[in-house]
Each structure stands twice: as C-alpha cells, then as structure tokens.
C-alpha cells in the first residue's frame, strides 16, 4: 500500500476505538448499489524503481531539439538554484497561506514578488498570480469592464494578440455577454491600426511586443484609449520589460492594467505548464483586481509581518459577488520567478533581453540570406515573421528531421500571410546554433523549390 503507514495492529486498534468491525463498515451510509466494481483501466501499481525506468524511457524517446519556437513560451536559461529551492518541501508541500503566522515564508516571498512586478511594469500594485497569460488576459478584460464606469461591454482586441490568448479570452468572457472586437494590423508593418471610433467599448488591449514580435506604438495607443474613455490593458512579456518602457509610463498617464505570462521568468517550457499569469494595476483599480494579494502589516507586538489582504474581493468571502472564481493560483511558479528575478537582477535580466534581441536579429539576417523573406518592416524584439516558398508543414517537418524545432506555423491563424512562420532565438542560442538552422533551412528551401524529379525530363 504505497504511502499508507498503517500496520495490521494499528488498523485493529483504530477500528476498536471507532467501534466498527472492519473498514467496510465505515462506508455503511453509502447506498450499497453505488459500490464500484473493479477498475479495468487502471493497471496494477508499480514501485518507484519501475516508474522511474518507464518515465526515463519516455523522456529519452521524446529527446531534445534545438528550439527556435517562442509564440508565448520561451526557452531561457534557468539557474540551478531556482528549482532546487522552489522544490524544498517547505515551499513545495505548503498550502495557501491562510494561516499567516505559519506561512510567513510564502507570504514574504509573494510580497517581494509583488514588489518586483510593480517595478517591472511601473504600476502600483500586483496580485499573487493568475493561471496563465491567456486566462490572465480574460481576467484583465473582465476587470476593465467592471472598472470602466460606462457599463460598456465591448473590448478592442488587436489581431496582433496571440491567437490562443484571444481564444482563451473569448471562451472565458463570452458567457458574461462581453464582446471582443478584433482590430486589424497593417500588412506592411505588422502593427495594429487603430479603428475610427470606440463606440460602446470599455477597454483596449495593447500587446508589446505583439504576437509577430513587432513593437507597437504603445504611447499613441494608450493615449488614444484614454481619449476615448477606455482603459488601457498592457499585454507584455516580462523579460522584455527589462529594457522596454514600462506600461506605467506609456503615453501621458500610463496603462491602467498590465498582464501577461510569467513563464519567461524561470519556468521551464514543460509542454505548456505550469506557467502563471501576472497582473498589475494602478492603485485606483486595486479593489477590482482578481486573485490573492499579500500586504505588509504588523503583529500584536508591532513586529512587521505579512498576510493575505483585501479578501473581501474573493470567492471564499464574497461568494457569488466575488471579482473572480479563482482560488488556487500558481504559487510555486511564482516562487521560482521570484528567485529567478533575484538571481538575474537588473543587469542579468537586461542582458537576457538584449542577447535575445541580438540573437533574433542575427537569426533573421541569416534566414533571409538562406532564402527566406522577412514579412514585416519595422522593429521587432525577440521574435519575427519569415516566409519561404515551401509549405509550412513540410518545412517544419523537414527541420524536425534535422533535430530543429523551427518556429510557429502562422498559416492557420493568418492565412493572408502565406507560408509564414514565427521564429525566436533567445539568449540560449549560440551563433553556431543559428548557423545550423540557417543552413538547414537553406538546404530545404532550395531542394523543395526545385521541380520534382519527374518534371525534369
């Protein structure tokens, strides 16, 4: 019986104390007809040695690839200390810090995290995390609709926002009769074109960098939003905020809410999760924020300490009138991120951002030299859109054959761009890695654009 410590003697003593003849008797309030039969799809249990072998074999079969795929999930170096400390039992196996006196470690860490996020975003307050960037954007949209006194229920959503973020956002807010209105991008620049008016709208989402990796004119977009009495929701990548202007400084008065995925700050790719959503806002909107928030206070002796605060916003107090139904968040990943940001510091995070930018410039240059075309003019950060004359699925499959994950296929969500893929090179890539990708792409493009052999006669 894995993980169950009872000896036969224990069981007998415990049943005697209860006054029950056997364990079955403890289930005597459950109608007999409901007793389950044998589980057919659950195999017999295995030892740790056996499961270790099985999982190691599966991991080895999955292998390792040279990765140039970003699209919302970025491969960055993670210092060894980050997850070694994060998976200490005291962090790993603790509950939500409701009993503050016995949870000062987690609570202080979240307070430090909130501080770091306000400094990255230039906004006043941060919550303790949401599930991920996509669902976080949905929460930001709901929050903006609550905060905007107009009562309007439309939100302007640029097509330059990650398509899967738009999907998650739509699927989460649609039952509350909120409509996402898509705004187009300029085909030459890959940047958002602001619409003529903002009739019936409560907020504008401003991605920076946008899904294509391009830098939007965030100052103009923020000012436009405010001129039209909309809230400005910044959708940002936290690594890039080491060097890019903080949302709190956008335009004349700054974005109102900043949201995004915290994955680049110390979370491994891990097939898509767990990551976390971060959310920051101006002070005036704090009481509209979803999720847990930690505050600093004092104890009975006047000693500083930390506790969850503003809980009257939350479901366990406010029930059907809560700002969100969120309860469990992504605390452990936030633990990792806080340690990551402390280890990288301002210089480290800036260098990660600058090196990723430089590597992506180098990658785009070499891919273009190898026969690809850069789709958008203008400035990109650490992702860019390229196009080849080879069908995306064939190109990406051929690259996988060479051990390279080559990028994100844009043809499904943006058919107007043709055989376009989104590529990314973070600080983890060397010149030799980039060279290898360019050579392979060049080889595939020249081979596949030749007419097939049967047409050569």
């Amino acid at each position: 019986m894995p993980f169950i410590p009872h000896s036969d003697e224990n069981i007998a003593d415990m049943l005697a104390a209860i006054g029950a003849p056997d364990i079955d008797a403890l289930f005597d309030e459950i109608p007999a007809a409901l007793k389950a039969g044998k589980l057919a799809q659950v195999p017999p249990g295995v030892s740790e040695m056996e499961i270790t072998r099985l999982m190691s074999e599966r991991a080895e079969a999955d292998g390792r690839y040279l990765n140039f795929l970003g699209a919302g999930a970025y491969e960055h170096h993670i210092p060894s200390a980050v997850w070694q400390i994060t998976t200490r039992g005291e962090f790993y196996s603790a509950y939500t810090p409701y009993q503050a006196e016995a949870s000062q470690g987690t609570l202080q860490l979240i307070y430090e995290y909130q501080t770091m996020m306000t400094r990255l975003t230039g906004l006043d307050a941060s919550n303790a995390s949401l599930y991920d960037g996509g669902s976080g954007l949905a929460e930001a949209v709901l929050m903006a609709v609550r905060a905007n006194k107009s009562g309007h229920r439309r939100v302007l959503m640029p097509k330059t926002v990650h398509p899967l973020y738009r999907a998650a956002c739509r699927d989460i807010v649609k039952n509350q009769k909120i409509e996402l209105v898509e705004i187009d991008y300029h085909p030459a620049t890959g940047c958002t074109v602001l619409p003529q008016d903002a009739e019936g709208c409560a907020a504008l989402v401003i991605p920076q960098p946008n899904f294509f990796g391009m830098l939007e004119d965030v100052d103009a977009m923020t000012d436009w939003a405010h001129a039209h009495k909309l809230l400005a929701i910044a959708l940002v990548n936290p690594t890039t905020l080491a060097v890019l202007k903080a949302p709190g400084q956008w335009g004349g008065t700054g974005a109102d809410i900043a949201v995004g995925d915290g994955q680049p700050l110390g979370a491994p790719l891990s097939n898509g999760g767990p990551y976390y959503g971060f959310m920051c806002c101006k002070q005036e909107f704090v009481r509209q924020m979803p999720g847990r928030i930690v505050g600093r206070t004092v104890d009975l002796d006047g000693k500083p300490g930390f506790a969850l605060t503003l809980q009257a916003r939350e479901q366990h107090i406010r029930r059907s009138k809560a700002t969100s139904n969120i309860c469990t968040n992504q605390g452990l990943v936030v633990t990792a991120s806080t340690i990551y940001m402390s280890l990288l510091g301002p210089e480290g995070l800036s260098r990660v951002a600058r090196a990723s930018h430089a590597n992506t410039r180098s990658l785009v240059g070499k891919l273009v030299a190898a026969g690809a075309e850069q789709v958008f003019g203008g400035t990109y950060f650490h992702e860019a859109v390229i196009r080849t004359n080879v069908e995306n699925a064939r190109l990406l499959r051929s690259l996988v054959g060479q051990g390279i994950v080559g990028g994100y296929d844009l043809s499904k969500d943006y058919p107007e761009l043709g055989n376009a893929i989104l590529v990314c090179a973070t600080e983890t890539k060397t010149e030799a890695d980039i060279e290898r990708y360019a050579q392979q792409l060049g080889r595939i493009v020249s081979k596949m654009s030749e007419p097939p052999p049967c047409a050569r006669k």
Partner: protein
Amino acid sequence: MLIFDHSHPGRAAHAQLPPHDGALDDLPAALLRDAPPALPECSELDVVRHYTRLSQKNFSIDTQFYPLGSCTMKYNPRACNSLAMLPQFLARHPHAPAETGQGFLQSMFELQEMLKDVTGMAGVSLAPMAGAQGEFAGIAMIRAYHDARGDAARSEILVPNAAHGTNPATAVMCGYTVREIPTDREGNVDLDALKAAVGPQTAGLMLTNPSTLGVFEKTIQTIQKLVHDAGGLLYYDGANLNAILGRVRPGDMGFDVIHMNLHKTFSTPHGGGGPGAGPVGVAERLLPFMPVPVVIHDNGVYRNAVEADLPQSIGRMSANNGNAGVLLRAYVYARMLGAEGMLRVAEFATLNANYLMARLRDAGFELAYPTRRASHEFIVTLKKLKDETGVTAMDFAKRLLDYGFHAPTTYFPLLVPECLLIEPSETESKETLDAFIEACLKIKEEAYANAERVKGAPYTQPVRRLDDVKAARELDLAYKPA
C-alpha cells in the same frame, strides 16, 4: 529582512549572466525604458540563503501534520516531482510537433483513461488548471448543452449553502444566477427545499459528495432524479473525491459532469497556493463540449485534439496545455498507486478520519453531526468552549501551531458555529493522530485554566497574530524604500 535589504549596487550573481550581450540601437528610443527595473542586486549566495531561510518560516506537509479540512494535505511523493522534471520533459515546447513529444502525450492520454475509469465518466479533459477552472469548464458545458438543444430558458444554478465559495462565483462567471439550497439537521441537502427549487429554470445543481460537512449525501439517488426530471444536469465538485476514490464513482451516482482536484486526490503539491490541476470528466451527452486540448490517439500517434476536432467544444481555458507538468506528477502518482492503491486511499483516509473523530468525541469535543459517519473529514464545533471560556475556533487553531500542528480549516462551512473542519488524510500514522489528539486535549485544558494564554497564541511562530485590519486599511502591497 526583505531581499531588497540584501541588495548592493553593482553586485550580481555573475555566473547567471548570459555570456554575450547585445545592442538595442535599432529600436526607437521612445519605446525603451530610462533605467533598468530596480530588481535586487545580490550574489548567488545572498539569494540562496535568503530564500532558504524564508522557506524555513513555513509549515508544510514535509515538516508538520496538516489536517486542513477540504484540502487533502497528503504526502506528495518525491518521485512524482523528480520524474516530471526529467530534462526532456522540461524542454518540450507546447507548440512543438506532436511527434517530438509522444512520451509526454502518451502519459497524458493514459492519465485521461485512468481518470475516466476511477470516476465512471465517458470522457476526461485535462485542460482546466485548478478546481475553480474545472468548475468553470463544467458549468460552461452545462450551458453549452442546454443551448445546443435550444433550451435557453434555464437561468439558474442550484448550490447547497455549505458549498465552497467557488461554486456560486463560478455560476455567475458563466452567466447564471445562483439559488442556495439549505441543509437539514443531519447535514444532508434539504430535500423539500430542493423539490421546491427545481423547475424549468434549473440549469443544474452543483454538489460536493461527500459534502463539505464531511458526510455522504445519503439521498444522492433521489437528488439525482429530482434534478434530472426537471431537465437540469448534475455537477460533481470533486473537492472530496479522496473520500470515495475507487469505492464509489461519480458517474455511477448519476453525475453528468465533474471536476477533480489533482492537487488533492492525486497528491500533486499545493505549492503554497498552486499550481493545481482541475481536469473535468463528462457523461456521454457532454462529450462534444469538452474544453480543449484533449489528448487523442489517432492513427498510432498521440496528439492534442483542438477546436477543429471538437467543433462544439466550450473552447480553451489557457493558451497552452493546462498545467501539463502537474498532470505528469499526477500520472506518476496514479501509476504508483495502481487500481488496488487507489481503493486503499479512500479506505484509509476514512479510517483515519473516523478514528480521530471517535477519539475527540470520547475526549469531550462536540461533533457537528454526531449521528453520522465521518467521510475523510468531519467537523468539531467549539461553540460550548467559546461560550464557557471565550476561546474561539480561531484561538484554538492558532494555539495548535504552538504544538507543532497546522490548524484545521476554521469557520468553513459557514453554517456550523466555531467549527474546525478536520481532514487527516490516509498518509498519516496512528501515532501522529494520537499526538494531535493529545494537543487538542491540552489546549482545551488551557482554555479553562488560562483562556488568555490561548487567546494570545501563537507564541512560537516567526510572528504573533497579525493586524488584518491595518493590512486592509493601510495598504502596503509593494516595498518602497523610505
């Protein structure tokens, strides 16, 4: 001391800096920030020491008994973590082609199959990232089902008044109004009230069974019939699945849709507040509406089914694949338990709870539902103690910290005064339970001998009781140097 107090200008963890740098000369100056963000400037040792020390200010399962009701704080096996963190799994990009991640995807597929079996449901989606998101997906599916049938007048979700706060909050997020159903003296859903409440406006009923009161809803078959006859669907909140795992299946009880908290029943870590995982299971008629992605086995290849495969899906809950790494931990746990081990989970969780309940009752503690069996948890009410000594459930809970035990859940469910909701879980030994009983008895004695001593607790923690009013009135949510 905060990490910022360890910061010195110009200091850095040099081994962590990327070897190469890059220029930003091609970017417009107006889009750049004036100065780097004020993150801490520390050496690697500064950071390691600071956060190691912070960790030591936490209670955790690995260090203390944690009988937190409704939270299932059982041992989180270490192998689950180390195997989910194999380098190839960590390196897998969520959008990389399926053929580069067959091992990961096969594990997800098999987890779906095992969860289907142990819950008696026809389909499982692993997409939701926590219990509340599972609830959201479940209620959204109920809405999609009624809408697809043109049955659009159903506007109400029924929720027992003992339910978790996420239930009513979720119903509202899905555009429903909430009607609360009272509980009878025995802790069951009040059947007369339920009969009066169901009707053509009923979209569904959300039920936790065993309930948050620690008892099995004996009349579940009647409840099921009442709701279904009215055209509503039945939602199972899996918060207490640990109590019946392998013994009773929600599908066999007639539930149409369920969520499971893998961070409870399948022992993935709580992590100081997450990440969890809240997969949903559905009966046949809700299969088309499951949230994506769902892993399918298609022509010998495991891959994610997406919107195109499931055109009636309620859609996505996240941008990627949910909390995939958490799901991998649950998979390892499920394989280690196996069919036999799963059954033992419910048996020993129930044995531990009933033992603790019997011993505390015999020691003079008042049970909220003395005529009932405990499920995997039960409620003690300290109303008498409070009336006689002034010591509240909160005081009692805080004093337990001094004895080296995490407090049980206090003041939930709201309908039992001065309540402690106690859930020992199956991984605790009799000796640990006995020590806990001993501590409860001592605190009770203290309450009568020196109530002020208990009311001032805790004394042994890094801080004493905190000023929550000040925390909310004088908001200090981020450090600002003086």
